[in-house]
Structures are given as C-alpha cells and as structure tokens.
C-alpha cells in the first residue's frame, strides 16, 4: 500500500513559493479533467434534527449549548424535501445531530423512505452505527454515508469529545467499514481543519481512505475538508487554515487520489468555490440551509445553524455560474435501483 509520506505532505504545506503552488495546481487541474471531465455534481443538505448527545467543543449543536432543540416530524420532513426537490436538487444529504435517542434508527428510516419519493440519491450524515443498522437503512433506500473523524489524533480527539457515544474514537473510525459492508455505494470521509496539525491529519485521513479502498474497492469515495468556523458562545481557539492551505490540501488530495470525489460546502465563499472546481473539487452543495426546517418551515428564527453559510447563491445561480465557467452541472448521478431487491435472498 503506497501512501504519500507525511514528510512530503508537510513540505508541500510549508512551501510558501507561489510558483510551487501554481505547479501543484496545474497537475491537480489536469488530473481532475482527465478523470472527471468538466462536470460538477450538486447536492443539498437537509437538517432533520439538532438534538445531540455529544459534546464537541467546536460545534454549534453540542449538547451543552442552550439552543432550541427541534426535530422534524414526518409531515415537516416532507415539506422540507419538497422545497429542496423543487429547486432541482436530486442528491440529498440528510443530517442530524448525533443522538441515538432523539433520532434512532426508526426515525432515520422514516426520513430515508420519505426522501426516496423526492430524490434519486440519498446520503446520511448521522451518528455512526453498526453494520446491521446501516444495512437496514441501505435496504430502505439510503445510498451512502458521510462520517468525519474530525481529527485522527487520538489524544486531541478525546480532549475535544467529552460526552456521548462520540467519545469512542475507534468505533467512529470503524463505522465507514460497517457501512461499506452493509452495501452503501458512496462514503465520504473528512477532517475538520483547524483541530489539529493539518499535515498529520491529512496523512491519517489518506491512510484511512487507503484502508477502505483496499477492503471495499467498489465504493465511490469522496473527501471533505470543512474549515472550522467560530461558534456562537464558544471561545474555542482553532488553528486557522487559510485559503492557500485549503487549496493546497485540495490539490494534494486530487493528485494522491485521482478518482476520489472532493466535496466543498457552502461554508466556503462563492469566489473560493468557483476557483476550487478547477483544482479538484467535484461536488458542491447549493443553496443550503444549515438550520432545522430552514427551507420551508421558517424556523430560522428559533433554531441556530450548525455553521454559517458563506456562499448564499441559489441553485439556479450556481448552475448559471458553472455554465459560464464551462462546467456541466450534474444533478442526477444515480438512479434508485430499489436496494431492497438486492438482498442476497432475493
């Protein structure tokens, strides 16, 4: 198993010469075009619930925050999904805070089954689960999961995650393997930039991904590099990752993993996103709300967002911009093929 050595990642991140970065960017650009052409997939998140039993020092949903908690009822989910589907979004990311009691398997099942009526591809960004639970949700119609380790440094992880099931570092790292074993087609991994030494976290993320590729080569993998934002009421001091570093991370990742997807959310600015798609990013979220009920229920007044949106453009505006930049926006990238019919006993 070959991996980009840690020292090489560090050297690259520390290299301040603009010409080195331009050279890196050229290689990343060429690799991206070769493997993906000029196509960008679009998706949107729906926040189902902000109940959370974890205490993550950096997160707006953390359980010690005195924010209003809410989870959507089934009719509310439907209204939210309808609103997002109307914008033309086909790939949906369903999110919850990590609460095994407020949003248990049955709740997620309802969400997935409802989403199946509106979207061609469904990804879950929820608490990590066991294989049997993932399998159940796969048969209900979920196609993929997103699960970030946040940081791969065990000590730092334990320091930052002091409550709930999320304290279990190893379970979290294993969970994507369970999801793959259960049949999930797409798996997204990531680190939260700003929690720990970037080079080390990147190296460990690549290691995790290579292990997964070796074990489950058929899964379509993607990576995300969310940057930590200031959280209301938190004096958490994060190591700020600047734009240059973020772009280097994207380029390095593209070169190291030519075929792996790279996601970039609306927490980044329109300007940065418009440039990053030339360098390796293949999936953009669009017209996102990070508030529970943020699309149709107008609950924005009384629940807080998980993070603030920088790129506030509508789906239409993003599509227009992509076309101006000679990119083909891809809304449909999967056909629901009735996962339940793939059961081994059928």
């Amino acid at each position: 198993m070959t991996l980009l050595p840690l020292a090489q990642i560090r050297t690259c991140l520390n290299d301040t010469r603009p010409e080195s970065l331009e050279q890196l960017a050229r290689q990343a650009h060429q690799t991206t075009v070769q493997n993906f052409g000029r196509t960008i997939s679009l998706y949107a998140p729906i926040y189902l619930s902000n109940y959370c039993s974890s205490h993550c020092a950096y997160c707006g949903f953390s359980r010690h925050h005195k924010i209003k908690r809410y989870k959507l009822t089934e009719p509310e989910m439907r209204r939210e999904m309808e609103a997002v589907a109307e914008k033309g979004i086909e790939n949906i990311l369903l999110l919850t805070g990590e609460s095994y009691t407020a949003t248990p398997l049955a709740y997620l099942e309802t969400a997935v089954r409802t989403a199946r009526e509106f979207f061609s591809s469904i990804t879950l960004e929820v608490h990590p689960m066991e294989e049997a639970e993932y399998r159940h949700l796969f048969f209900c119609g979920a196609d993929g999961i997103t699960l970030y380790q946040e940081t791969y440094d065990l000590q730092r992880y334990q320091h930052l995650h002091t409550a709930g099931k999320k304290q279990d570092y190893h379970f979290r790292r294993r969970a994507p393997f369970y999801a793959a074993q259960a049949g999930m087609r797409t798996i997204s991994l990531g680190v939260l930039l700003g929690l720990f030494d970037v080079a080390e976290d990147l190296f460990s993320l690549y290691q995790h991904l290579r292990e997964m590729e070796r074990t489950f080569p058929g899964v379509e993998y993607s990576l995300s590099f969310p940057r930590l934002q200031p959280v209301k009421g938190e004096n958490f001091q994060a190591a700020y990752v600047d734009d240059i570093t973020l772009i280097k991370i994207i380029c390095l990742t593209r070169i190291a993993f030519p075929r792996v997807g790279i996601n970039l959310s609306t927490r980044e600015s329109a300007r940065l996103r418009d440039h990053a798609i030339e360098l390796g990013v293949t999936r953009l979220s669009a017209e996102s709300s990070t508030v529970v009920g943020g699309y149709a229920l107008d609950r924005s007044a009384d629940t807080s967002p998980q993070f603030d949106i920088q790129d506030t453009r509508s789906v239409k505006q993003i599509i227009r911009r992509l076309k101006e930049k000679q990119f083909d926006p891809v809304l449909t990238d999967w056909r629901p093929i009735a996962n339940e019919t793939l059961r081994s006993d059928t």
Partner: protein
Amino acid sequence: MPTDKDTFFIAGKPFQSRFLLGTGKFKNKQEMQATIRNSGAQIVTVALRRIDMETHQENILEYIPEDITLLTNTSGARNAKEAIRIAHLARESGYGDWIKIEVINDSKYLLPDNAETLEATRVLAQEGFIVLPYISADLYVARALVDAGAATVMPLGSLIGSNQGLKTKAFLKILIEEIDIPVIVDAGIGLPSQAAAAMEMGADAVLVNTAVATAQHPEIVAQAFAWATQAGRLAYLSRLRHPQDAAEASSPLTGFLYEQPASSANDQKGSVTTDNDQ
C-alpha cells in the same frame, strides 16, 4: 477493395461507422451534440445514472440525434444484480434494449468484473436485451460471453480514461482472431493513431470518450478519431503488411536452393574449405 459498403452488424443491425462515442465528461450538452454529429458516430453510450428523468436539468437524451442508436450503460453497477436492475430500469424508462454492461467493483482502477459481467449478460440476453459487455481482454470470458448470447465483446485497450492506448494489444489480437461476434475495443484509446492501430489489427470498431470529451475542441478531435478509425479499417482490409523491426534478406534459409553453384575452383578445393584457409 470494399470501401463503400463496409457495413458491420450488431445483432443484425447494420452500421457504417465503426466509431462509437461515449457521452460522459463533456463540458456541456451542446458541445456533446455537435461532437456526435461531427464524428459520424451511429452508436453512442449514455449512463442511465446521468439521465435526468425528472428533467430538472437539461435531459441529455434531447441532445442525442434521433437516428443514433442509444446504448445505455450500467455505470455504477458493482455486481450482476445491480447491472440487471439498471438494465430493467432503462427498458422500463423507454430507452430500448441495447445495453452496455459495465460492472465495476473497483473505484480506483475502474476495471470490469468479468465474472459478474458474464452473469449479467447471461440473464439479460435471455430476456431479449442486445447486450454489449465491457470486459478485460480474456479469451475464456469472451468465449463464455458468446455462449451467453452477447452481441459483441468490448475488451479494454487500457484503463478507462487513461489515454494509455492499446496496453492489452497481445490479448486483443487473440480475441480478434478467435471470437466471431464483433470485437469493439473500448477504454484507454487516447489518440487517433491508437484507434487506427486497433482497427489495423482487425478490431470491428472502437469506442472513445475521455480523449474526445476532455479535448479543447471535442468536435474536431472526434472527427480525427473517426477518420483514424476508418483509415485503420482500410489498412486492415487492404492486408497492409506490418512493418518489421529490421531489414530482412528475402530468403536467408532457403535461397541456396535456387542459387548457381559457386565457382568450380572452390569446388575442387573441397567443400570444407573456407576463405580463412586460403
């Protein structure tokens, strides 16, 4: 030389163009359409997963001319069962019975899974689909696919999207020699000269996507590929002699039979005498 009516058949359907085009990776649908037209391709592949049936976005099918034979592919299928499901969906959605089986269970190399591909072909051919399976160039699998009712075999030249050309050349030659249904070289063809080389070897057709779609001017490049395909075909039909690595005497081993005996003086010295003896 049969140039005008060099028709080839897939499942009994005649085609003049031996250049097939994939529709992925284009920067917009208009350019894709112009490229199809310019290339003269009569068969194009479309991934079912990329067809926006809800037409939230421009439907790719609206940009594919009506006289083109649509070959839906099962991109995204990781095993036979999924490929079969996708083929059924394509048929139910009205996209016809022509299906390119792509079963890929490796997202890094995108190599096809021959065993699962064979299984999917067997089932779908029995159900009346026209099945064009994408495979690694393997003789046994190709033979089994013929028995399973495949309409063609589509062995890869090299890794999808790699532009590496005919890395599997020796094995392609074997399939071309031994398999009686059309052999369409698919994947990895990055230059028109490589398309020509495949056709010179006797391939029935080639399929190209990445090299065209990611080019600066796809419609021009597609035409170059189509012409190269045709040039290679003509060379094959004309039994053009392949170049040799070194100059060759015309008959080094048997020429002596036709030569006049050497001078009588030498003969008198006996047959064992050489120049060095003198």
